[in-house]
């Protein structure tokens, strides 16, 4: 027999070797390139410049390529928007590229629509299905073609537009859930310019944020993160101050020096009360507010607004005095107030405060750079290349109504922004899709919307595609970003403009002559031929950043501003039955849910609650105590439209009559990483819109809470119970 000592020796030895046996040996095969890239040296990384498409901000990126594979994404130091920085969402783009659920070849519907049951087919087979449909309606009724896309910018947008014009159909809808309809309407109302303003946060000494989310999910988070850092620490003797008025304690408000909690939907009123004090006390002698003062601002006293917002009048008086004493001062509004029933009103009030404070065109203020001047050489296409060309929520609603009436025989869904998920059920988008006889989707994944397609053409990832982009914010209106494939196409996929160009060629006639290029790269190179910088050099740098910026756009309404038309936020449900206002916000990592299939972003802790992989409902600790709800308990959130369940997160920064939930979770058909993680808060909403712009109102319902049993638990990184004492916050 072996004794105990020997036995232990051998056990140890076996365990040791088992451990090392587990280490991956050198791979047994070596796979050299088919065609190696130019200037390539084995083992040395190559960096290619391109643009990020993970959110609408349009940052420039550099991608590290090693042996033909994209390994890491960094910010492009030359790009004016992000100056070498990049956020977590941008970093996670790699997972989208290598995602195991990406469509690898065209798919034909094999079951009922929406079932997600598809058979793989080849590209020739797929085009043999699609092209006869297009050819038939083109000769019979070209206007019965609908093209629904997500946000498209640059020449991809030009190709899509020309395709539809050449086809003879005016029915092109480009819809983005994180659209800027309310901001555009507010700019138009106050300044007479329908455009997104440029905010010079970096040079401001004082910043007022009205429900702003510019540090996490707003217009251009990386740009604003950098600008915020410069405002705080970029100057030797000045440390800019940030004051936040909002209805939820967000990451931006956590970074503010002062946080004023206001009732949801009263952010605009708070801005007006500050403007009232500025004019009443003549704090800014140069402020020309005559028409506005008599037009209604006179009545919006701090006392009157105090009752509505829940803040003491002194808050507005003190803020106005600080603002006047710390010029330049800037006011910014965010997604929260923009997605109210009175979103345009809120944003108009903030824009008016900027206008009255004389912030237009000054350093540390706001401006409208003449972006079209940069793009003027593109003539009629300039408008299509510039930011915010999307047709807005109203156009989607009109198209959905017409779908129901049978106006469309073929629908092309071009990487649609998942309207079947990101719209309330009362919008009945899926039901409307059922009235279209043939639906072809071009998308990289099967999701709730593309699962309704009869045919899915797999599209290439943006890291595999040619393109150009024009960032909506963060530069003087003079930066064109170029995109190039940083790796060769990984699966049997094609880019949307290439599919459209090929389809145009096959359909022939005026359509083919409107889109003459053989492929999108050629189209792009032709478009940029003759620019100041050669195309190849611009590709190397990531774009054209050296062009002289144009002058600021003159304000047509510079002489006198008018008061925004008063508008109240509307909330579905009676306060007796549904005592809490529901505050929905885009998740810091998943946004509206488009990134829910990326595990890196699922496991990225929310900056305030540190929760991962699920959604939750934020409740004031006082309210939770009254309802008998403890940290992590299951809670049923019921609105007149529906009920969902989520885990409770007690959040002392939230008003007692408000509960907040992040968007993004609750997918039914978006793969295994997105599926089965919480329930979809969009299903709680009525089909409500902002009165001023028609954009979707996410803050539009009241809810009731009750405790329910919920399987599993919410995983959180922090130790929330240890961070604050409940009795500290209970009056």
């Amino acid at each position, binding site marked *: *027999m072996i004794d105990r000592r020997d036995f232990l020796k051998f056990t140890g030895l076996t365990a040791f*070797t088992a451990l090392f046996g587990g280490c991956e040996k050198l791979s047994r095969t070596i796979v050299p390139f088919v065609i190696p890239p130019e200037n390539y040296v084995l083992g040395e990384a190559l960096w290619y410049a391109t643009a990020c498409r993970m959110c609408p901000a349009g940052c420039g990126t550099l991608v590290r390529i090693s042996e033909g594979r994209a390994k890491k994404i960094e910010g492009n130091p030359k790009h004016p928007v992000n100056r070498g920085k990049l956020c977590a969402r941008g970093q996670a783009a790699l997972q989208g590229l290598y995602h195991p659920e990406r469509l690898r070849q065209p798919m034909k519907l094999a079951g009922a629509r929406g079932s997600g049951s598809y058979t793989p087919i080849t590209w020739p087979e797929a085009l043999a299905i699609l092209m006869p449909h297009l050819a038939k309606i083109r000769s019979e009724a070209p206007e019965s073609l609908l093209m629904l896309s997500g946000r498209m910018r640059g020449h991809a947008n030009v190709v899509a537009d020309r395709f539809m014009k050449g086809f003879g159909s005016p029915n092109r809808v480009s819809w983005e859930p994180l659209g800027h309809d309310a901001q555009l309407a507010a700019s138009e109302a106050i300044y007479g310019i329908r455009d997104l303003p440029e905010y010079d946060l970096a040079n401001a000494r004082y910043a007022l944020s009205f429900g702003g989310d510019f540090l996490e999910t707003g217009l251009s988070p990386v740009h604003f993160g950098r600008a915020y850092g410069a405002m705080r620490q970029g100057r030797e003797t000045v440390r800019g101050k940030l004051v936040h008025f909002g209805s939820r304690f967000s990451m931006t408000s956590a970074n503010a020096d002062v946080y004023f909690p206001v009732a949801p939907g009263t952010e605009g009123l708070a801005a007006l009360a500050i403007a009232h004090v500025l004019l009443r006390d003549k704090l800014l002698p140069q402020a020309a507010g005559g028409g506005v003062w008599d037009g209604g601002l006179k009545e919006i006293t701090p006392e009157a607004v105090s009752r509505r917002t829940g803040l003491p009048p002194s808050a507005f008086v003190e803020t106005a005095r600080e603002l006047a004493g710390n010029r330049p001062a800037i006011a910014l509004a965010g997604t929260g107030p923009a997605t109210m029933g009175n979103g345009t009103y809120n944003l108009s009030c903030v824009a008016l405060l900027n206008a009255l404070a004389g912030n237009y065109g000054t350093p540390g203020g706001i401006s409208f750079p003449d972006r079209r001047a940069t793009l003027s050489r593109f003539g009629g296409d300039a408008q299509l290349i510039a930011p915010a060309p999307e047709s807005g929520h109203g156009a989607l609603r009109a198209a959905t109504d017409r779908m129901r009436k049978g106006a469309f025989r073929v629908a092309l869904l071009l990487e649609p922004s998942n309207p079947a998920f990101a719209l309330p059920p009362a919008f009945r988008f899926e039901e409307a899709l059922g009235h279209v006889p043939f639906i072809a989707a071009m998308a990289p994944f099967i999701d709730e919307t593309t699962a309704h397609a009869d045919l899915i053409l797999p599209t290439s990832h943006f890291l595999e595609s040619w393109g150009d982009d024009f960032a909506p914010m963060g530069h003087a209106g003079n930066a064109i970003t170029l995109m190039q494939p940083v790796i060769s196409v990984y699966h049997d996929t094609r880019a949307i403009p290439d599919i459209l160009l090929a389809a145009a060629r096959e359909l022939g006639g005026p359509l083919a002559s409107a889109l003459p290029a053989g492929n999108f790269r050629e189209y792009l190179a032709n478009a940029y031929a003759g620019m100041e910088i050669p195309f190849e050099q611009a590709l190397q740098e990531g774009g054209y950043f050296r062009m002289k910026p144009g002058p600021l756009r003159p304000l047509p309404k510079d002489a006198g501003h008018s008061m925004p038309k008063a508008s109240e936020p509307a909330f579905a449900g009676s306060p007796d039955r549904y005592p809490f206002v529901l505050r929905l916000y885009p998740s810091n990592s998943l946004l509206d849910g488009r990134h829910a299939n990326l595990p890196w972003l699922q496991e990225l802790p929310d900056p305030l609650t540190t929760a991962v992989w699920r959604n939750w409902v934020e409740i004031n600790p006082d309210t939770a105590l009254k309802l008998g709800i403890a940290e992590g308990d299951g809670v049923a959130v019921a609105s007149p439209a529906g009920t969902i369940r989520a885990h409770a997160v007690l959040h002392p920064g939230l008003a007692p009559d408000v509960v907040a939930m992040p968007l993004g979770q609750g997918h039914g058909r978006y793969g295994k990483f997105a599926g089965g993680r919480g329930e979809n808060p969009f299903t709680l909403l009525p089909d409500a819109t902002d009165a001023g712009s028609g954009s979707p109102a996410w803050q539009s319902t009241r809810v009731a809470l009750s405790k329910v049993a919920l399987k599993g638990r919410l995983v959180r990184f922090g130790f929330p119970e240890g961070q604050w004492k409940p009795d500290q916050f209970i009056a």
Partner: protein
Amino acid sequence: MNRPILLAVLLSLFAATAFPPGEASALSGQPVPFSHKTHVAGNGIDCRFCHIYATRSASAGIPSVAKCMSCHRVVAAGNPSVKLVARAADEKRAIAWNRVAKLPDHVYFPHHKMVNAGVPCLFCHPGVDQAVETVQKRAFTMGWCMACHRQRGVSIDCWTCHK
């Protein structure tokens, strides 16, 4: 059960864990029969004509399909092995070659340092020029590396190779 048998059982278990089967089989049989003898001894092609990264990179590199086809589009185009490569080129498909020369993961071996210092390729890869089927003839043991490093008076610091 007596002690030697038990020891043998345990040792074989250990061996099975430490040296999983399949290593040996991977050495032989390449996806395309390739003769170094034909290319090097027969036609006098320099090693670095195909292994182009040997002077520039830690890894000497295996030639790309395009590299093979730069000659074989014309030369010996009818050869059945060449046809396999031609088909891969047409389909733009990479060829997965089986690894022949093996070094443990914990050794850093920069080809370009050796080649640029004038160490002939055949010093470490003896007989490759005559090989119809490529095999590793030299065992890359630490003692053998050290002997040469000592003889040439170059670094024998641990971190030179183990990093």
